[in-house]
């Protein structure tokens, strides 16, 4: 592993006899491939920076959040651009733009992670029960998933959020539930394919209980694709949070900085200060890019076909 002069490509070819020894686990191999993928490194760096900013927002932000003390610097005729006091200028409501963007990261991270967790937990429960129990239970649960899939996911999220009212919690539930079908299908599919594999046959032949087989053999082996999907879904969730806020479905509390809503408010001053909408838009895109790159690199790394 410590051949610093080798490029990733030459490493892959030269070390072929040593690669993927029978003893190397899928996870270890995947991690090794991940560390060599530029896509994974860029993605992980963006995600790490985003999480760092979100977690340490109060320490990093130059001002208090939502302190609208510079209203005279944001009028329909003039908006203060970057200065040494305000590195990214003043936002629509007279707050420091950089501060708002930093706290916006926090909002995106919290809603993104919680909603993906809701989707993952519910979806995994539905998928595991359907795939593990089978029969009528499977049919009923999958029909239910089909119903949810018959509505485009963002529209599903919109209708749930519209019913729950304007709050961050409503957003989390709405975006989370809209993800349930994806995870349910994914887990059920991989449970079914696993249950026909040799090691499950072996476990069954040994007389292990069905629950033990599902929980300790089938489920752990379905974990890889699920983690990949969750990472990719975080990107979608962050974009959907912004989209729902853009439609006026986010939190109604003006003190909470949210990137999607910052774009909406920036729209009002688009003619004289297009950057008001531009900065938060770029933040959304870059964060989503980070999770997408990381997720796709993980998918490639975990792909057994890549094992040589």
């Amino acid at each position, binding site marked *: 592993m410590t051949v610093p002069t080798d490029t990733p490509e030459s490493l892959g070819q030269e070390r072929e006899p040593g690669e993927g020894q029978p003893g190397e686990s899928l996870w270890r191999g995947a991690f090794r491939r991940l560390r060599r993928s530029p896509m994974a490194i860029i993605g992980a760096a963006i995600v790490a920076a985003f999480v760092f900013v979100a977690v340490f927002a109060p320490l990093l932000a130059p001002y208090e959040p939502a302190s609208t003390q510079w209203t005279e610097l944001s009028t329909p005729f003039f908006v203060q651009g970057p200065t040494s006091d305000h590195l990214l200028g003043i936002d629509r409501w007279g707050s420091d733009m950089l501060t708002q963007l930093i706290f916006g990261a926090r909002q995106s991270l919290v809603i993104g992670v919680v909603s993906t967790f809701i989707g993952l937990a519910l979806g995994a429960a539905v998928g595991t029960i359907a795939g593990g129990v089978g029969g009528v239970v499977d049919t009923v649960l999958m*029909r*239910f998933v*089909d*119903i949810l899939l*018959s*509505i*485009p*996911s*963002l*529209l599903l999220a*919109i*209708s749930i959020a*519209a*019913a729950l*009212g304007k709050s961050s919690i409503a957003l989390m539930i709405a975006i989370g539930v809209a993800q349930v079908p994806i995870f349910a299908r994914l887990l059920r599919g991989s449970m079914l394919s696993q249950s026909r594999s040799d090691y499950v046959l072996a476990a069954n032949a040994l007389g292990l209980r069905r629950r033990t087989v599902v929980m300790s053999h089938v489920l752990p082996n379905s974990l890889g694709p699920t983690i990949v999907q969750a990472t990719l879904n975080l*990107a979608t969730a962050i*974009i959907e949070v*912004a*989209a729902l806020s*853009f*439609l*006026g*479905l986010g939190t109604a509390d003006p003190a909470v900085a949210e990137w*999607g809503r910052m*774009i909406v408010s920036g*729209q009002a001053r*688009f*003619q004289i200060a*297009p950057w008001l*909408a*531009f900065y938060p*838009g770029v933040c*959304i*895109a*870059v964060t*989503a*890019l980070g999770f*997408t*790159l990381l997720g796709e690199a993980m998918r490639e790394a975990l792909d057994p076909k890549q094992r040589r």
Partner: protein
Amino acid sequence: MLRFVVRRLALMVPTLVGLSVLLFFWVRILPGDPARSLLGQRATPAGIAQVNERYGFDQPIWRQYLTYSGALLRGDFGFSIRTKESVLGVFLDKLPATIELTVVALVFAILLGIPLGYYAGRHQGGWLDTAIVSGSLIGVVTPVFFVALLLKYQFGIQLGWLPTAGRESNRTNPDHPTGFYVLDGLITGNLSATWDALLHLVLPAIALGTIPLAIIVRITRASVSEVVHEDYVRTAEAKGLLPGLINRRHILRNALLPVVTTIGLQLGLLLSGAVLTETVFALNGIGDYLYQAISNRDYPVLQGFILFIALIYSLVNLVVDLSYGLIDPRVRAS
């Protein structure tokens, strides 16, 4: 083939019935009693009593559902709280605008996406391939409404090249026999109206088509780069077939199957994206109306529109499945 279609259509029935149940109970779980949430802020005791009687909210819940689903079957989807229009009527009225937008967006994505993806797949590792792949990644992660705003600002407001709001300039064409403004101009012989309607579609369609474009590029690239290494391509080359023929008949045709699946899957994205795009460009389609219904908590409209969208979505997915047969003889045979 016919049996497959019938089976698929039959499978749609329980899904739509299930959806109608969900949508029915959806209004029930809203905080407060249903009459109050239907009436919103304008709820008066007299109004609530009237709504209770009209919608039968005082009856047992199963009977309420039967009444509701019976009305649905008769094509009665209720009335908008805000405008008092029939939900079905409004939907049909707004549908052409959204179809026009999504079709133009999809055509844009396909016409640009397949050639770009094909080129990138054939020239992997080149600088243009790298540019195409990076561009498609950025396309996937940029929110639709943000692209829409940037286009509107740059090409509409800054440069003034293209219109940024509405479906036509004032009184270009007073006659709209079909509601499809591009077609209406052709039918009534008013070509300048067609041109005008198309100009109004350019920016919204590019904004809406960005994500499908990026996805089509990526899938086409991946698919082409896989097919290129197939044995039958090598055989075709060994036989001395003309490169153009190999590219068209052997590579492109086989590479297209996953692309068709992807194009079908884009429909959900397009319908969701239409809500955001129509809002930015004031396009007065289904999405724009749905947005207003959300802002005004106009539940009958939301219920009806979601049901219609689900129906269209399921039907288009069926058409996509059927179209595999046209491209892939193996599917036709089975």
